[in-house]
């Protein structure tokens, strides 16, 4: 234990969870969605949380994403103890440190592809015009959507939408990108392409990617796999393939 503490002090992790639990109240009954989960995630990792439906994947991602707070335990994300952030601080923290990729893509329908990617730079980070344009074009090129930049979300395919969502998540240079079942609404071929895009982005921008999935074929793409069952962390599998040190 002493060694772990020493390592925590010297090494900066993307995420450190220590005995994190989360209870939900369903009427008078408290349901434990996560039970004393502990793990550390290195920067620029490509990590997956896997498990069946109801295992606590989404709950864990929500906690890491500062969208929810643990009932017990300690959680540090990008070097910040997120337990004590208030609503506004959480929003600011998310805007400056995290990127989100959603299962349903969640693009803003009234904005074009370009504008969707621009949104967090403009409305969250207030990045100046010139810099904004440069970063958006870099992202559009990285996800191969330059030609589609003026289209609205309802004019592009599911795979393209998710690539736009990846670009939107990464355009703010986040330390960590969280993706909850990012391929659930895609066919396998597209799902693999999206994951490839994510990996490519990880390599290019050194961003930590954490995604959840219950699709066994997709799981294999992750470099570190945490298995969850009934809210408990039941396994960790480290695979080769991480390209950076």
């Amino acid at each position, binding site marked *: 234990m002493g060694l772990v503490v020493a390592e925590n002090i010297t090494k900066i992790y993307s995420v450190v969870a220590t005995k994190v639990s989360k209870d939900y109240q369903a009427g008078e009954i408290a349901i434990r969605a996560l039970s004393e989960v502990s793990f550390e995630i290195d920067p620029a990792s490509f990590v997956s949380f896997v498990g069946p439906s109801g295992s606590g994947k989404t709950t864990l991602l*929500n906690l890491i*994403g500062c*969208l*929810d707070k643990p009932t017990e335990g300690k959680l540090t994300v990008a070097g910040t103890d997120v337990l004590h952030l208030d*609503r*506004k601080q959480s*929003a*600011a*923290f*998310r*805007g*400056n440190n*995290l*990127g*989100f990729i*959603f299962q*349903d893509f*969640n693009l*803003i*329908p*009234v*904005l074009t592809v370009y504008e969707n990617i621009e*949104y*967090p730079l*403009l*409305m*969250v*980070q207030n990045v100046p015009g010139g810099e904004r344009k440069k970063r958006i074009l870099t992202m559009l090129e990285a996800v191969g959507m330059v030609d589609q930049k003026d289209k609205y979300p309802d004019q592009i395919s599911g795979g393209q939408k998710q690539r736009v969502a990846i670009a*939107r*998540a990464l355009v*703010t240079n986040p330390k960590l990108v969280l993706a909850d079942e990012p391929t659930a609404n895609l066919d396998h071929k597209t799902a693999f392409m999206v994951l490839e895009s994510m990996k490519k982005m990880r390599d290019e921008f050194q961003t930590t990617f954490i995604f959840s999935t219950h699709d066994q074929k997709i799981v294999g793409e992750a470099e570190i796999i945490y298995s969850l069952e009934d809210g408990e962390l039941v396994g960790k599998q480290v695979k080769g393939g991480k390209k950076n040190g």
Partner: protein
Amino acid sequence: MGNLFKIAIRNLLRYKRRTLLTASLVTIGVVFVLLFISISGSFKNMIIGQMTDSMLGHLQVHRKGYLAAIDNLPLNLNLKMQAYKKLEGILNQQPEIEAYSPRIKFGGMFSTFVETTNIRLNGVYPDQELKTVPLLPSRLTNGTKKTLEKGEIWIPELMAKSMKVNIGDTVVVIATNQDGSVNGKQFKVGGILESVTGPGGRDGYIHIEDAMEVLRMEEMEVSEVAIRLKDFSRLYAFTEKLDRLLSGELNKQGKPVYEVHNWEKLSPFYNIARMIDIMALFIKLMLIAVVLISIMNVMIMAVYERVREIGTIAAIGTLPGKILSMFVVEGFSLGLLGVVAGNILGFIIITIVNFSKITFSFGRETGLILTAKVAPMDVLVISLIVIFISVVASLQPAFKASRMEPIKALRHV
């Protein structure tokens, strides 16, 4: 800010039919208010103009206590020569005054040698009176000259008809003097005046020197001094100023000599004018209710339909204040759209109304042409009210959106 407007407008265009319906409601409300204000306001101003410019003047100065007894036209409450001269001195120094006219008002008997009736008369200096109430000559029926000579009388039309008096006829005016004696004088009918609604609308006119003769006044006394201002909009300020100036003039008992009243205190039409203003206020309140309910309804729907979007933008770090602004700007834009369309449509309809030369009657006055006019300040005030209410109506839904928990919003189906 520009981006908030861009997003707001695109969101409004997303539900074109709903936006159009709501904006139409606001537009119709604005058009109705503008029309009502322009027509009722013009009617009010026209009647006020008729009364002040053909009878009352903008304001009047009396001896203290005269107004309370004005129905009896009490000669004992006239301003004496000294008091009038002092008043004249003060009035001559006021740059706001265009003209003023001293009047001797009295009641008497009017006889055609065949028939006799009561008459209320104004003794005036014609030149001063016509400068103070410039529309008075317009009340003279066709064919009569527009000046009042000594020895002439202008009589109200109704009296002329009922007594079968024509221009050029000789008549007698008999009046009781201040000491109780009776005196009479022959006059030639020099003009017949159309009656107008309001106090003094059925009075006759004679030269002030003739009035002094009938009333056996050795030196001039004045019942009232009617005043016309260069700028009617300065009425309240000037009334206050003159009141302040005259309140320092005290009699031997230490009481004020003069009292100042503007047309509002002198005419019962003021109550009608106030009713018109109150009705305009109620119409504005209805507009506020229409805008408030319709925009709030649309914004509540907008928030409800976009819960997941709100969750998304909140999750990616949009601060609650900015989410609130997004919806407030949307409500503001909707209100602005209604205001712009309402003002344009209102202006077109007002132009059509004026072009149509619609006539109306008021009292015995017929053929008055309705001239709908709306002051730029009214347009500005109505526009600001609508926009303000639009913002207020969006606040509650916007606040709700900004307070949404992203995690719950993202789960919303």
